[in-house]
């Protein structure tokens, strides 16, 4: 008798939340988590009541995000260009329906990179530097290569922005996405400059704080954050162009409520939501014509036009091979 | 009435035969010892009676009921283990009461019966101690109380005293016997100590290599054993091998003659033995008694033994009051009557 009660209790413990949510229509969104999800959540109340739906968020992006999309466990998936093209290749997404996602027409053309997804906002990877340690303002990506900063510059490991940097270096040295050797040759030199490849923003912040690093490839928004955290840094967009950080959003194929998911994407592209990306996260909205008075975020067609954004459809199939080269030629000593 | 009946029980472990068609009856209220060296199968037999092992062949009956296939917990036995096997996490009281709790006996009755059992073994004052807080003898008594509190149909004891030192062991023998008498418990006691077996038992079973060599009263086992093995195991013995002459004399290979205490078929080649206390040492005469050389006297206090060299053997002879004192190296004759062992019985 007693034992049965315990077993029932255990089962109840697990089952409770499912029963509670089962009553209502529900939309599951895979998002980046942390502050990003918090920002999206701010305006979600209006969307929920307008459509009679409950939106819940799963912190997943990248491999786990796409895996969940392929398994039809989420309705909407956030990602970046690499995962976007992988998802397209694996037939994971619905085409966005311009009849429902009416806000598509209000976006900067660069945001509409594919019929199967859309860029919700742009960030800028540039050079963050400590003005007390760096003489004069860096102007070019190549400043990271300057011998006087050997050991005191940093970038991440193999990620989307560094892939853009490889492609940029290839292009500056006579190559392109298809002829990447010159890019790797140049990056190998950078590898010798670097003592630590950072993997998390808080980690880089600490490196700047302790002056172990004086210059790094970082996000504009992050530099503002660092300043708030009491580490005085400056940001510069190099003359070759800042590297685009894009957040993409996709409607997952084969879920019961794709129309609702399309509406949700439309909601993310609405003026209110778009404005919050700028206000809370420091990202440039992909929607044109917003009034961003009082928000310190670069916002112009020219700025978005200048962002470096390679042809990811070409890059994605090469990412595995490039990763191996990165580890061998740039990281390994 | 037979309280326990063991009929043709065999036990095979892989390719090793531990028990070979053992048959044995135990009377109600009897104290029976199973005596033998380690590995003779005595513990296996006890465990089969208890139900801790299943026989490969044969039947076990307890109190007139066939229990061969019954598991141990249905057999209503009491078992005392060699190292007591007290549960270290339970108090003395709980160790004793567990069997009653399992039988769903009322709380009040448990209390009465456990107290009574503990009083029997004089441990009522220590009921709340943990086993680790008790001495060896006290632990032994808890193990006994745990076994008898259930009023078992049979009490099985697996070398229960061997973990105790000599003095304590002798005290416990007395206590164990009186407890068994008081309760009238049919008991089977497994031991490798022949003194213990002889002093405690109504009957003794001597086992060797999985078979019963002999069953009998302690006197029978000691004085009139049937085989050389039994004779040698239950006490000091000096063996003579030879041919029977005239029905009551054993002629040895060296020509000496030993009178036999019981008649044997003339012309048979047999073995006979004597116990140290059966021999009287004398000055050699022409009587033909086996002759040896006096080596020395071993003094024990209350008694003493002679050591005599007989050919290449050294034998003991009990010194008796009034015996003549021999000098070391003096020639002596062994005056004794030897007990003839069964003609077919093999030498060791």
């Amino acid at each position, binding site marked *: 008798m007693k034992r049965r009660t315990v077993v029932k209790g*255990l089962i109840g*413990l*697990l089952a409770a*939340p499912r029963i509670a*949510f089962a009553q209502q229509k529900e939309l*599951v969104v895979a998002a*980046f*988590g*942390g502050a*990003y*999800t918090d920002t999206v959540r701010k305006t979600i109340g209006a969307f929920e009541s307008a459509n009679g739906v409950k939106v*819940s*968020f*799963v*912190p997943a992006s990248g491999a*786990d995000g796409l*895996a*969940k999309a*392929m*398994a039809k*466990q*989420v309705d909407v998936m956030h990602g970046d260009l690499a995962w976007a093209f992988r998802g397209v290749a694996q037939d994971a997404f619905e085409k966005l329906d311009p009849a429902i996602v009416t806000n598509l027409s209000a976006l900067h053309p660069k945001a509409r990179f594919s019929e199967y997804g859309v860029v919700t906002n742009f960030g800028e990877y540039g050079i963050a530097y400590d003005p007390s340690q760096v003489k004069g303002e860096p102007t070019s990506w190549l400043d990271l290569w300057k011998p006087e900063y050997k050991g005191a510059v940093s970038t991440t490991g193999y990620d989307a922005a560094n892939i853009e940097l490889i492609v940029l270096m290839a292009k500056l040295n006579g190559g392109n996405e298809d002829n990447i050797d010159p890019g790797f040759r140049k990056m190998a030199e950078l590898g010798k400059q670097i003592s630590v490849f950072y993997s*998390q*923003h*808080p980690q880089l*912040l*600490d490196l700047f*704080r302790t002056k172990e690093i004086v210059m790094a490839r970082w996000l504009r928004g992050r530099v503002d954050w660092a300043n708030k*955290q*009491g580490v005085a840094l400056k940001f510069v967009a190099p003359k070759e162009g800042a590297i685009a950080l894009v957040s993409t959003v996709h409607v997952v194929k084969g879920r019961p409520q794709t129309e609702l998911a399309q509406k949700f994407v439309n909601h993310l592209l609405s003026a209110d939501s778009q404005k919050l990306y700028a206000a809370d996260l420091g990202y440039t909205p992909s929607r044109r014509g917003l009034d961003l008075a009082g928000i310190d975020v670069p916002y112009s067609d020219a700025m978005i036009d200048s962002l470096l954004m390679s042809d990811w459809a070409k890059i994605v199939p090469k990412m595995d091979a490039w990763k191996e080269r990165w580890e061998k030629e740039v990281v390994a000593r | 009435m037979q309280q326990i009946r063991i009929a043709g029980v065999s036990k095979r472990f892989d390719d090793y035969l531990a028990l070979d068609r053992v048959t044995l009856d135990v009377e109600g209220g009897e104290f029976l010892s199973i005596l033998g060296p380690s590995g003779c199968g005595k513990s296996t037999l006890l465990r089969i009676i208890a139900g*801790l092992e299943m026989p490969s062949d044969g039947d076990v009956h307890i109190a007139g009921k066939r229990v061969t296939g019954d*598991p*141990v*917990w*249905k057999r*209503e*036995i*009491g*078992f005392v*283990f*060699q*190292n007591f*096997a*007290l*549960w*270290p*996490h339970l108090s003395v009281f709980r160790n004793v009461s*567990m*069997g009653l709790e*399992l*039988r769903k006996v009322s709380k009040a009755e448990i209390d009465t019966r456990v107290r009574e059992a503990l009083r029997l073994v004089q441990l009522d004052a220590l009921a709340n101690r*943990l086993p*680790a807080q008790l*001495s*060896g003898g006290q632990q032994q008594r808890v193990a006994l109380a*745990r*076994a008898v509190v*259930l009023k078992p149909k049979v009490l*099985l004891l697996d070398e229960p005293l061997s*973990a105790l030192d000599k003095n304590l062991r002798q005290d416990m023998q007395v206590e164990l016997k009186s407890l068994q008498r008081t309760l009238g418990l049919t008991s089977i006691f497994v031991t490798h100590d022949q003194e213990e077996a002889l002093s405690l038992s109504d009957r003794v079973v001597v086992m060797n290599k999985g078979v019963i060599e002999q069953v009998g009263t302690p006197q029978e086992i000691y004085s009139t054993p049937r085989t050389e093995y039994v004779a040698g195991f239950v006490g000091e013995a000096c063996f003579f091998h030879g041919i029977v002459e005239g029905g009551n004399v054993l002629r040895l290979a060296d020509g000496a003659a030993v009178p036999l205490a019981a008649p044997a078929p003339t012309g048979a080649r047999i073995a006979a033995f004597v116990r140290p206390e059966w021999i009287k040492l004398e000055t050699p005469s022409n009587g033909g008694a086996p002759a040896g050389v006096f080596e020395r006297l071993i003094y024990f206090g209350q008694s003493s033994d002679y050591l005599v060299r007989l050919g290449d053997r050294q034998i003991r002879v009990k010194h008796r009051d009034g015996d003549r004192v021999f000098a070391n190296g003096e020639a002596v004759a062994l005056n004794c009557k030897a007990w003839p062992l069964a003609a077919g019985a093999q030498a060791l």
Partner: protein
Amino acid sequence: MGGALDDARAPRPRDGRVILMRPSPAFIALRYATLALFFLFLLAPLGVLVAVSFNPTAMIFPPQGFTLKWYAVILDKPDFLHAAWASTKLAALTAVLGTACGVFAALGLKNYGGPLKGAISGLLMSPLFIPAVIVALALFQIIFTLGIQANVWVLLAAHIVVTLPYPVRNVMAQLDGFDQRLEEAALTVGATPRQALLRVTLPLLRASIVPSLVIVFILSWNNYTVSVFLADKNWTTLPLQLRAYLQYEYEPFVAAMSTVLIVASTVLLFVMDRLVGLGPKRK
């Protein structure tokens, strides 16, 4: 080394004699120095965390002021509270069921010998030696192929699998020295094997079961690599939530939360010790 007192309390050997030996002061000093150095090494990062949790500005050590505001912030993070609760439930279930499985397995293996025992115990230990993330990913794909939605049962099973080696090994180690006669003694007084297990064997195995429960709870509570693929939306565990958060932020809030965990776990273990006893007191 040990004090005379230790020995007086130690179980007396059968022969009843206790050899008393006074350690030299040098050895006592050495022991305390070892303890101090050992814990300094082990707990330094926690010390930093606790200190930083009171720092008003950022994750800076040494702290530049004192505030309790980060502790208040915890209550403003429903996601974290929800995740902590999910993790607690999951870890508790994993601990109970996983330890039960491990105890059963160890008991079951006790009677086996030779190559079969080796093979099965090898199997039970093997989750320790392959990156859990690979197994979790494969499991995810299999479930996906079978058309099963990720659910908490799969998550639970996966957590049990990756933590199973710990209870199996702990309990098997204790069973190695276990006196079989204690169990037989219970059978002779009329206990069925199940009753013997419940009344004798399991209480005696407490010394390895309780630590197993704690370890499995901790491992499940901290698991990231398995949960990342198998957790569904209702079961976003604390490590997942934290990882997502740490990608972007690192405020003393995290230190405050860790401090709360440290204190809470200590209190929990203290209460458990009072209730069931964790220490080896009765050994």
